[in-house]
């Protein structure tokens, strides 16, 4: 009897997992295998792919060192900037805001997602372009300021675009915060700052780490914001990939870079999570 129930339970589990497993096999595992195969191939004379077995694509990786470096610097930098801006907002929403308006305020954070990121980034192109802020500056005598197509514009676009993704996980972890712990800290003589550093911040770390990981991972594949606000000059790996597939039509080299990017992301993520677990002193990080 017991064996039978176990089999039944296993069958149900299998049936529940099957759709997701099939989805991942068809849309993640198989394409990844195709990419691996391509990465060892050669560029066909007119572009594209032709079968071969060569390591030349991987040997060429250093030619994209600048793009890798930009991505590995600007993605975490963007995530940290997001965090600095997002934490106070999330704290206000979860702890300080009047509960009657909380739902409304949280929805307002999400509202920008109802419009395409492309359109919103285009709007920034006009705000930062000569007819936007620089025009206002010239009215008070500051001439010829250039804002668009600079690394600063890219960082601004990143913070703007990804802020909600950082606010939400932090908000969720702060909302669950047991207020009695704060009272206990105060009772024991903790000043607001030490209560925040000793109680609130550590307890919200899982949310912080989730937000940072989420934003960093998405930024590692970012293409649109550097393209539009960086003028094609601030170059991410995503932009290098687009170029390799759409301009030079070097699929094998593009595949090699994509495979390498996946490997780098996995390593960065594992290291980051290790550090997070150590800092948080807990294994409750709900990612990976």
């Amino acid at each position, binding site marked *: 009897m017991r064996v039978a129930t176990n089999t039944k339970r296993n069958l149900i589990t299998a049936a529940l997992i099957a759709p997701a497993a099939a989805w991942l096999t068809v849309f993640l595992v198989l394409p990844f295998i195709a990419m691996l195969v391509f990465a060892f191939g050669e560029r066909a004379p007119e572009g594209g792919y032709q079968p071969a077995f060569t390591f030349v694509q991987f040997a060429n990786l250093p030619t994209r060192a600048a793009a890798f470096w930009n991505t590995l610097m600007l993605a975490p930098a963007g995530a940290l900037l997001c965090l600095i801006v997002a934490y106070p907002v999330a704290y206000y929403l979860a702890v300080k805001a009047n509960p009657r308006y909380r739902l409304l305020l949280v929805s307002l954070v999400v509202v920008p997602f109802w419009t395409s990121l492309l359109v919103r980034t285009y709007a920034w192109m006009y705000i930062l372009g000569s007819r936007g802020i620089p025009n206002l500056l010239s009215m008070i005598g500051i001439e010829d300021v250039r804002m668009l197509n600079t690394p600063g514009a890219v960082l601004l676009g990143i913070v703007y675009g990804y802020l909600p993704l950082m606010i939400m996980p932090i908000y969720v972890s702060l909302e669950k915060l047991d207020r009695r712990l704060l009272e206990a800290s105060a009772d024991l003589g903790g000043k607001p700052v030490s209560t925040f550093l000793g109680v609130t911040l550590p307890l919200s770390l899982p949310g912080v780490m989730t937000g940072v990981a989420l934003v960093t991972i998405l930024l590692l594949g970012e293409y649109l914001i550097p393209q539009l606000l960086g*003028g*094609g*000059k601030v170059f991410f790996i995503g932009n290098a990939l687009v170029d390799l597939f*759409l301009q030079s039509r070097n699929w094998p080299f593009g595949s090699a870079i994509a495979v390498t990017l996946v490997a780098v992301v996995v390593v960065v993520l594992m290291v980051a999570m290790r550090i997070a677990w150590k800092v948080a002193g807990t294994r409750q990080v709900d990612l990976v």
Partner: protein
Amino acid sequence: MTKWYRENAPITADKLADELMRLKRGSVSRRHFLGVTGLGLATAVLARQPSLFNSAAYAAGELGTQMSIATWPNYHDPATFESFTAATGVAVEVNVFGSNEEMLAKLQAGGTGWDLFVPTNYTISTYVKLGLIDELDLSKLPNYDASTENARFTNEGIVDGKTYAVPKNWGTTGIAVNADKIKAPVTSWKDFFEIAMTEADGRAMVHDYQLTTIGNALVSLGFSFNSIKPEELAKAEELLIKVKPHLYAINSDYQPSMRATDAWMTMCWTNDGAQLNRDMPEIKFVLGKDGGEIWSDFYAIPKSAANKPAGYALLDYLMTPANAVKEHIANGAPTTDSRVMKLLPTDVTSNKIVYPDEANLTPLEFGAAVTLTDPGRAELMARFKSA
């Protein structure tokens, strides 16, 4: 004694020969030639005959309800597509690209859904070789007339005697300069790259397109626009990487930046130059006296097109002189079709941006097929951008 027909003719035989030679030397415009010889009037009268398309009516549903075209930025009069939709019931989806490489990449990957697209002269032979475009069925294009086309701009649409593409218009790749912002004279690609690093520091744009960006860098160094010699490409790469930190952007859609005066100088196609100069006279368009590109763009139908009947219908619509003339007035690119030329107003045909003097075209080169597929140029461009 003079013959009566000589007295009535608008021009004498001697004078005609004289005018023809002047036209060939480029010292008079085609419009002037057609005007003084009376040929313009004669063909204009013929051209006003009702065309086949005007009487052709498509049965409802025959062409489907939608189609898609791949083309270049700021290259069509939106009203053209609207009136085509009004006439046929087919909605036109417009996809815009910044390089031929990108169009080729999309077609190689498959599943574009384009029923018509706009490749440049030097790419056609590769498309044919790769079997990506159809030989055109000219019987479906009654409004296209090969005999009124200027062969200089149409020959690359014909491969092995078969017509694979018909011309849209021709043009050049020059330099657009905002004269209010840049005082130094810009007359060559050598000037362009020097001023991009000095007076126009942070305000110059190059195309996101290997042919013109590498080609013009090569020209500025005294090499051929089409060079694929590794040592010459290495020098061009050195120049481009030196210029890169001074550039405003690497982008083929430069009109918004030039109009907003974010950018003060850019590599620029004829049609964009004409549009910018029309709206902002301080933006001048100059051809490099050291060289550069002359080109013609074509219409072709991908083998993979989903709605070929609509592709042919739109192509025929665009080949109809009465429709084409509106396109040319809107986009400012010179026409390859003498029927259209006759319908264009004088302010267009006398515009030196659109129809430059022949002497200024002499140093220019047509793009060569090899630049499209050469891995050296492709990789150079990718390295320049990711540097």
